[in-house]
């Protein structure tokens, strides 16, 4: 026997969730008669069966004395829905403050990221929200939130996006920060995404025979090759920006206060407090970028391991000093 939730706590939670959903779906259907069930399901994030179940309950609801003329009219035919006799539900419930804030903050963040195709439409939508929702929902917040990203998007972004959509291989000239080298390679780009202020493309890299992330602003040229590829389902958004490999060397650094930001910015392994300094292990498959990192940190970071990194930093400092002699 399947457990029934009845009037228990979880039962009422479920009822409240369904009520919340209905108070949004019904006005939409009053305004957009004959909308397909599948479209409603997609827009409102509800399964077909659940939706039909809710709509079936709706047409025994209405106003007292609950006679035939007082109940909400629900008509489901050929997978489409019509609702009438629900004038009081002809417009949706207001946004709660939490909903308005959450959407406004996310929207502002996205609108200010250079290279977002939706930015103009998003900006005008946010302006409408500011105007129409009024101070009782958003407060003074609209004037107090800003998202001013410095800079401009990578010029190659449009070419890469088109290649992603059309599953087309690209030939790129790429500057890899890990090795401080520029190389030409062919990639199969699958997803473009933005993380901590930069655009990346998740792609299959022919040169290494591996999946790689490429920073869009480090792609100097992107040329479509005309060749199509079968996507492997590579995903970008939300993944860590550094994927450990078997070739990784553990780099052990002692970070003094001026260098502690490194532990926030990069994905570090172990962290140990050492009398005001922080000892971290940074996995790295190439030492060049770590050497440049240590160089910029000046005396604020000490290399504990490996010894060849110390030597490399010394060499890098020597070569850089050469520019100033």
């Amino acid at each position, binding site marked *: 026997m399947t457990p029934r939730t009845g009037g228990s706590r979880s039962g009422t939670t479920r009822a409240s969730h369904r009520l919340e959903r209905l108070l949004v779906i019904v006005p939409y259907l009053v305004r957009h008669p004959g909308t397909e069930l599948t479209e409603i399901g997609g827009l409102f994030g509800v399964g077909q069966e659940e939706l039909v179940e809710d709509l079936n309950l709706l047409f025994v609801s209405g106003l007292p004395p609950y006679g035939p003329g007082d109940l909400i009219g629900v008509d489901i035919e050929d997978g489409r829905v019509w609702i009438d006799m629900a004038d009081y539900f002809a417009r949706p419930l207001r946004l*709660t403050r939490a909903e308005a804030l959450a959407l406004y903050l996310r929207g502002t963040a996205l609108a200010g990221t250079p290279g977002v195709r939706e930015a103009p439409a998003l900006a005008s939508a946010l302006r409408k929200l500011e105007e129409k929702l009024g101070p009782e929902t958003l407060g003074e917040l609209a004037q107090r939130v*800003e998202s001013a990203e410095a800079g401009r998007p990578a010029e190659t972004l449009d070419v890469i996006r088109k290649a992603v959509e059309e599953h087309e291989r690209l030939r790129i000239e790429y500057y890899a920060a890990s090795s401080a080298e520029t190389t030409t390679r062919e990639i199969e780009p699958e997803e473009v995404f933005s993380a901590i202020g930069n655009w990346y493309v998740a792609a299959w890299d022919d040169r290494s025979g591996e999946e790689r992330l490429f920073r869009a602003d480090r792609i100097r040229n992107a040329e479509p090759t005309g060749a199509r590829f079968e996507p492997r389902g590579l995903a970008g*958004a939300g993944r860590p920006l550094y994927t450990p490999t078997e070739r990784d060397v553990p780099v052990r650094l002692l970070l003094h*206060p001026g260098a502690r930001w490194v532990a926030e910015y990069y994905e570090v392994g172990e962290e140990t407090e050492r009398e005001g300094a922080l000892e971290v292990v940074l996995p790295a498959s190439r030492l060049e970028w770590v050497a440049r990192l240590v160089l910029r940190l000046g*005396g604020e970071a000490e290399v504990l391991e490996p010894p060849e990194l110390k030597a490399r930093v010394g060499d890098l400092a020597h070569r850089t000093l050469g520019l100033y002699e």
Partner: protein
Amino acid sequence: MHPLERLVDLVALLLDSRRPLTFEQIRDKMSDAYGQEDLHSAKRMFERDKDIIRDVGVPIDVVAQDVWEVEQAYVIPKDKYYLPEIEFEPEEISALFVAARTGGEDAPAEQAVRKLLYGADGGLLAGASSAPFATEAGTTDARLTAAAEAIAARRSVRFAYRTARGAGSERHVDPWGLVFRAGHWYLVGLDRERGEIRAFRLSRVAGALREEDEAGPAPEGFRAGEHVQAGPWGPGEPEERATVAFSPDVGWWATGGIQGAVVEPTRSDGWVQVSLPAAPGDALASWILSFGPDAEAVEPESLRKEIVRRLEAVR
């Protein structure tokens, strides 16, 4: 009677009614729902339903029927219930959907867009496009919402903060603005103990933000963005300019993201000189050194000296 049916009927009744209704009147009209013999259990059920309805955001006004407030009546005020008419173009709604899904799922943000769908033309792509954006994990977490609420309500906030240098302390701040930059949210306001305007990265706040007393007003012409690092020169508005030369390997991208950078004609050795906004402090020297032997500070002389000093320290 199904609980959902009861809830829908109650919202419909209180929303459609011209005047507030007492529990007795509601019980009379909705006898299938609250008509039980036991008045107390009927009242309890009504109270529970009322709480659920309020929880989903339905405003219910309570009006006293007599001076002793013994008898109360309930109504859903139409002007507080209904969403104002806002017309949206399909691409605007689609952009809002993308925003709501940016940086992971966020139920309130998505629910907000679903309410707004009403004002859009039909025939939208079901579910709109996916959101290929990942901002800092937990962007709309409790701290961000709490900061936004405090700004909207003009309340000061208290919180534990750890600086980039690792120093932890308790802060008491009059919050004046929120800034999103390079994937992070910053709260900007007056640090009361320090008597200065400071920017706090929300990911460095430990624990919750607690609202305290009324916040003082922001000074005339305050702009939150000016207090958050905007480029390699560090926080604030740059006052000077510096010239930096970049090797051909890095010259084409190094200054791509920097506002106010002016690229000079390429030198005969292929290096590119760029004039950049600059401010006193370590930030610019540190940034130039991150390019190793691929970048050279050309001027001012003080910047060259600082770089040489740092290089000699690690050699």
